[in-house]
């Protein structure tokens, strides 16, 4: 009876979890595909990488990339293949071009503008503070008030 129980308990272990997608046989190809696919955008669900997306087009493109890897094409050639067809939009890292200058430099320009504004504001404030001059009598009064405060328990 106990053995029967053990056998029954073993049954679920036979039904092992299946991978969502069968990976290709060659782990090296898969590693290169993954390395490439995280840098590439899925055109259908535009905020996912080719590695993450389950869209049919992403699957097709992964298949295509796998074949190119199997043909021993370089990463550069594979990325070129996709850019020729889909444009720079497939790249998560846009290339440095005349049209993307603002994209790349924009954050630094904003930083410089912010820093300049900060320096200007601080300088102006400092000037305002420096402008206040005390007469002799006022100076004495300040000293008196401060000493009174210090004597207070």
């Amino acid at each position, binding site marked *: 009876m106990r053995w029967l129980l053990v056998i029954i308990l073993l049954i679920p272990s036979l039904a092992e979890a299946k991978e969502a997608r069968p990976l290709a046989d060659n782990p090296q190809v898969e590693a290169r595909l993954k390395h490439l696919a995280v840098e590439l955008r899925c055109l259908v669900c535009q905020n996912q990488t080719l590695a993450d997306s389950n869209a049919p087009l992403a699957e097709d493109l992964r298949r295509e990339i796998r074949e190119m890897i199997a043909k021993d094409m370089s990463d550069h050639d594979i990325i070129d293949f996709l850019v*020729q*067809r889909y444009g720079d939009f497939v790249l998560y890292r846009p290339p440095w071009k005349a049209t993307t200058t603002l994209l790349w430099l924009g954050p630094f320009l904003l930083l410089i503008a912010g820093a300049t504004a900060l320096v200007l504001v601080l300088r102006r404030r400092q000037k305002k503070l420096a402008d206040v001059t005390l007469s002799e009598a006022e100076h004495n009064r300040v000293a008196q008030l401060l000493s009174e405060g210090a004597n207070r328990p």
Partner: protein
Amino acid sequence: MNRFLLPLAIFVVVVGFLAVGLTLNPRELPSPLVGKPAPYFSLPQLYDQEKTFSPNEMKGKVWLLNFWASWCEACKEEHPVFIHLAQSGEVPIYAIDYKDRREDALKWLKQWGNPWTVIAVDESGRVGIDFGVYGVPETYVIDKAGVIRYKQIGPLREDILQGKILPLVRELQKQ
């Protein structure tokens, strides 16, 4: 008053950028293939499976190539526009049945009508990849030399046809 002027100006500029951004469709990407020769392919035809279709047969003609599928909902939306265009006979329209099942495609055509001269079958979607297709329907205007001159992403509407595609086709036909 003056101290509010600069933040207000910045605010107006930002709102301006966002307003323009709202009118753009993020799904419409500029195709790098416009101005380049249409990729070569040779695909079996849907009706006559023995025969193939290749863009080389269309040299010397201005034509439209429409990527379509029976599973594609937006394709139904543009279908009347194609039917109408086919009746006018102004420009030959060809189609590629993209990643579809033959029997579904035939059933769909029986129900909705067939405006295309020839339908080629791209079952694997490989030709679609060469054309940079990322969502059917897509329509390409190809000139006499076989160069892609325009790409329509998403359903073809009557106003786009009349306003952009047909004027372009007429101009290309004169060349």
